[in-house]
């Protein structure tokens, strides 16, 4: 109950924050629109996204707002239909790797000693090994990565940065009086971690979720672009793969290659803007206080 109430209070302050910070608001609105498209893409696709039924290689027009591919598919419908995979990959990978970061980072800080040494070493090693070449090698053996395989690989390679950051913050909180008091009361480690330690870390956890989601979007689209995803799936990265292999840029169909990239960039920017804003929640020193204070001073 207490945990729920604290969580509610935290979320409330996040809501207030969104209303105050324009960068965060823009990011949240874009993310919400993309989420709606991802859940019900059929509302936004005027044409069948996979049908090769239209005049190939058409530019901008009323019937095809972003033109058609050289196979005669409608680009706009493909972009809309591809939203689902990118948004879902972002959310699922973001969520799972954040859980992993929290578990590893916070237990390292909370338990300390050799557990900390071991977990920190593990985190740092995973962090410094360049993940993308590793993912390329793994998917190259498996020929093509299905949705869940991609989620798995991205989670396994994407949690370490967050774990490191969360460990540092948890370490700085570990010896605060209220935590020592909770331990002295004889509360269980689970109670101390979930009710006392994690709530003050909410904004950093959210920032990590956004960072991991952004990483997932970019890495997944990169893999699909080089043909290591499922090339028959509906996604922005796969669209770019087909566009590149059919020389869309050189054959006068730039929209085919540019539109899915813009879609990825829009999703990425929304996550990055929210991340930028949540950095300011996590670290009050970064908040743009000076201007507001200055304005208040002028008014007074």
């Amino acid at each position: 109950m207490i945990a729920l109430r604290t969580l509610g209070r935290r979320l409330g302050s996040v809501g207030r924050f969104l209303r105050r910070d324009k960068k965060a608001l823009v990011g949240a609105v874009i993310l919400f629109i993309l989420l709606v498209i991802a859940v019900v893409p059929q509302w936004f696709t005027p044409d069948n996204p996979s049908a090769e039924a239209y005049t190939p290689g058409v530019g901008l027009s009323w019937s095809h707002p972003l033109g058609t591919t050289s196979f005669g598919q409608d680009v706009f419908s493909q972009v809309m239909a591809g939203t689902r995979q990118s948004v879902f990959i972002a959310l699922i990978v973001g969520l799972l790797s954040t859980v992993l970061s929290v578990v590893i980072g916070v237990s390292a800080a909370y338990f300390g000693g050799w557990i900390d040494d071991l977990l920190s070493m593990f985190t740092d090693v995973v962090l410094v090994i360049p993940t993308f070449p590793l993912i390329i090698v793994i998917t190259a053996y498996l020929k093509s990565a299905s949705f869940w395989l991609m989620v798995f690989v991205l989670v396994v390679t994407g949690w370490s940065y967050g774990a490191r950051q969360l460990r540092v913050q948890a370490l700085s909180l570990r010896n605060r009086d209220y935590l020592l008091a909770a331990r002295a009361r004889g509360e269980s480690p689970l109670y101390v971690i979930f009710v006392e330690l994690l709530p003050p870390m909410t904004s950093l956890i959210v920032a990590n979720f956004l960072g991991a989601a952004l990483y997932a979007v970019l890495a997944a689209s990169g893999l699909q672009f080089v043909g290591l995803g499922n090339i028959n799936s509906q996604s922005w990265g796969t669209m770019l793969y087909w566009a590149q292999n059919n020389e869309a840029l050189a054959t006068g169909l730039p929209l085919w290659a540019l539109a899915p990239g813009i879609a990825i960039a829009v999703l990425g920017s929304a996550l990055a803007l929210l991340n930028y804003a949540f950095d300011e929640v996590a670290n009050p020193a970064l908040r743009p206080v000076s201007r507001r204070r200055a304005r208040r001073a002028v008014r007074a």
Partner: protein
Amino acid sequence: MKFLIRRVGFLLVALWVALTVNFFIPRLMPGNPAVAMMAKFHGHVNPAALHALEVAFGVNSHESLISAYVQYVGNTFRGNLGISTSYFPIPVSTVIMRALPWSLGLVGLSTVVAFIVGTAIGAVAAWRRGGLVDSVLPPTFVVISAFPYFWVGLLSIWLFALTLNWFPLLGGYSETATPAMTWSFVGDVLVHAILPAFTIIITSIGGWILTMRNNMITVVAEDYVKMARAKGLKPRRILWQYAGRNALLPNLTGFAMSLGFVISGAILVEYVFNYPGLGFMLLQAVQNEDYPLMQSLFLLITIAVLLAIFISDVATAILDPRTRSSR
């Protein structure tokens, strides 16, 4: 000194993990695809070379895992990385050495440029909180850094090479040029490097701006900066010699941590531009199912990143007495 020993220890552990991961990946894959590749080799390479490949990919099952591992580590240390299937019969190490300078030049230089320029912008942005630089550049580059690297590459090809015809389309040098140390060839190489370098710089600069800005904001609030102001020092001097120098140090650590991310982007940039470096070669090896080349490239890229991280760690230790004493 203790700090240095810890870092060397970490470097060795990370190298060992990379080496071991590289050894186990082909063994863990369902239906080891290397078996098919091995069949092509029979009768074409000498038995010793074939045996080295079998050890590396775990094809010949009568070898015990431990002795295969020991042999694999020994072969790797001697630089015996096997034979490339797509460049047959050239050894992998020779093939890689052709691509290495291109990547070092392109990715190394553009990363250093992005780091220096980004750090300078971040410092100035934090120095003038809420000023023009601070309200425009950090958010802009944060948004750009969320763009896929390869797509920014595609965009600049379309805009600057195809539409405006300012720069060459693809490759590391013109097909008509003969590689030699002449001024015309060097110029040709530079012209070909501009677009890919530009792509890497503008997509990676946002991270440096942001971390430097955040460090700088903390440092500017320190007492010694107030003291410097009170002494009436010139703002420019306080910015670079007092605050900037201290804020730079954590950024150097950040540099090490983000390097892997930059390399990932650079692989795709090289691919988009057909730039003859390691990243392009890695993806070509994937397409050609050239497993020995692919695995060695993964190992080499990892070693390069680990060494760069180590160097920046040592640089931090030399520049910052705090890291030496506190750890």
